[in-house]
């Protein structure tokens, strides 16, 4: 009994209690694609507290400097901390006052290092991030996970988006998508997520970033379609069921 007492006091010192983490308020999938003029990203505005959809106006798409856009899923408070890190990064970049500015590739690399180093300290930021942007005509779209796994591609998604949205994007994405086509494609994916991801909410934003600049849309909802024949009179073949 004495030894186990010692063991637990050794283990529950302040240092250790910072380590193991659980996410509390989380955002679900983010999806991003390259299109003709730049990058399009979509995310809903839900912040779930376990199985409760606690917050419905969480902005998970944010601007980073002049050339980049970040979308985050996972723990919202960790995302807010990441935004503070990025704010400082961009501030210092501006303070050089040398006409240079960090492009999306650089910001993605910075985020990767931050996530990986936190993972090395066993104190991860519980997020999956998507970073997109355009600089000097070059489009960039990358992803980083909470343990530092990172890559770039023409289409990326986090969380459930990997399972439900990416297959659609892989099938229907093209190099020369127009803005309207890109939005339609993202909406198709977001609708699919809405149907099948229980933590999705029907209030989303779509962000567009091009060489000219960034716009994040006002929140809006998607039309959903429940007129499947199987849903009309569902109990007709089995009286008494529901």
């Amino acid at each position, binding site marked *: 009994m004495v030894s186990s007492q010692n063991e637990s006091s050794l*283990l529950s010192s302040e240092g250790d209690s910072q*380590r193991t983490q659980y996410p509390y308020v989380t955002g679900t999938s983010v999806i991003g694609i390259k299109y003709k003029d730049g990058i399009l990203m979509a995310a809903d505005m839900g912040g779930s507290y376990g199985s409760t959809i606690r917050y419905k106006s969480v902005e998970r798409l944010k601007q980073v400097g002049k050339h980049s856009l970040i979308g985050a899923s996972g723990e919202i408070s960790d995302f807010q901390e990441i935004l503070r890190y990025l704010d400082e990064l961009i501030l210092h970049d501006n303070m050089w006052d040398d006409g240079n500015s960090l492009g999306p590739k650089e910001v993605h690399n910075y985020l*990767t290092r931050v996530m990986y180093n936190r993972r090395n300290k*066993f104190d991860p930021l519980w997020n999956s991030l998507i970073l997109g942007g355009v600089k000097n005509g070059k489009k960039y779209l990358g*992803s980083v996970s909470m*343990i530092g*796994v990172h*890559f770039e591609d023409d289409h990326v998604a986090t969380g459930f988006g*990997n399972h439900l949205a990416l297959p659609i994007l892989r099938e229907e994405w093209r190099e020369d998508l127009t803005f309207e086509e890109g939005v339609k494609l993202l909406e198709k994916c977001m609708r699919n997520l809405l149907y099948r991801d229980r933590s999705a909410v029907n209030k989303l934003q779509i962000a567009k970033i091009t060489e000219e600049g960034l716009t994040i849309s006002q929140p809006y909802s998607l039309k959903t379609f429940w007129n499947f024949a199987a849903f009309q009179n569902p109990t007709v073949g089995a009286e008494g069921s529901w």
Partner: protein
Amino acid sequence: MTKEHANWSPYDNNGGTCVAIAGADYCVIAADTRMSTGYSILTRDYSKICKLADKSYMASSGFQADVKALQKVLSSRHLIYQHQHNKQMSCPAMAQLLSNTLYYKRFFPYYAFNVLGGLDSEGKGCVFTYDAVGSYERVGYSAQGSGATLITPFLDNQLKSPSPLLLPAKDAVTPLSEAEAVDLVKTCFASATERDIYTGDSVEIIILNAKGVRSETEQLRKD
């Protein structure tokens, strides 16, 4: 009072297979370009090969974030070496550096399974194969990663390497021509792709010889 257990792992296996074959005056280094996590494919177009020096190419599979960090550490160490010695590192020197770098993190390892390929100072092909904590040896050929168990027996059969226990030591580099070795590598990956779910999409092949470096890409099954 039971110890708290973490509900996340600092490691992940992003899959993939790497192969290298040493020839009399060339070296072939190859790796597939699929990056996975669990049962999902993250991207089909990701290079696992890194040029560490003019004559040293490293192919690594395993946990991609660790692989990238390892590549960064070795590249910057090589840059420092060049500043201090005014020359490129030889492949055997890089091999030792890689081993030391891996062992340095013996108690929180880089989850990276590496194959280092290049040309030694005599211009002969050399391949070094590693485990995650830096144990290494020079061999005539090697495969690492998720498809290694499928490829290694095939290479054993086709390359008929002499036993490393023989005295006097017999040369392990294959007498095959460069074109035959490249073809053999393509066959290896086509076979591994059939049965290993983490291998596929395409294979990137780097061929090093006295004339320089050449790259080939071959498409693989995407399922």
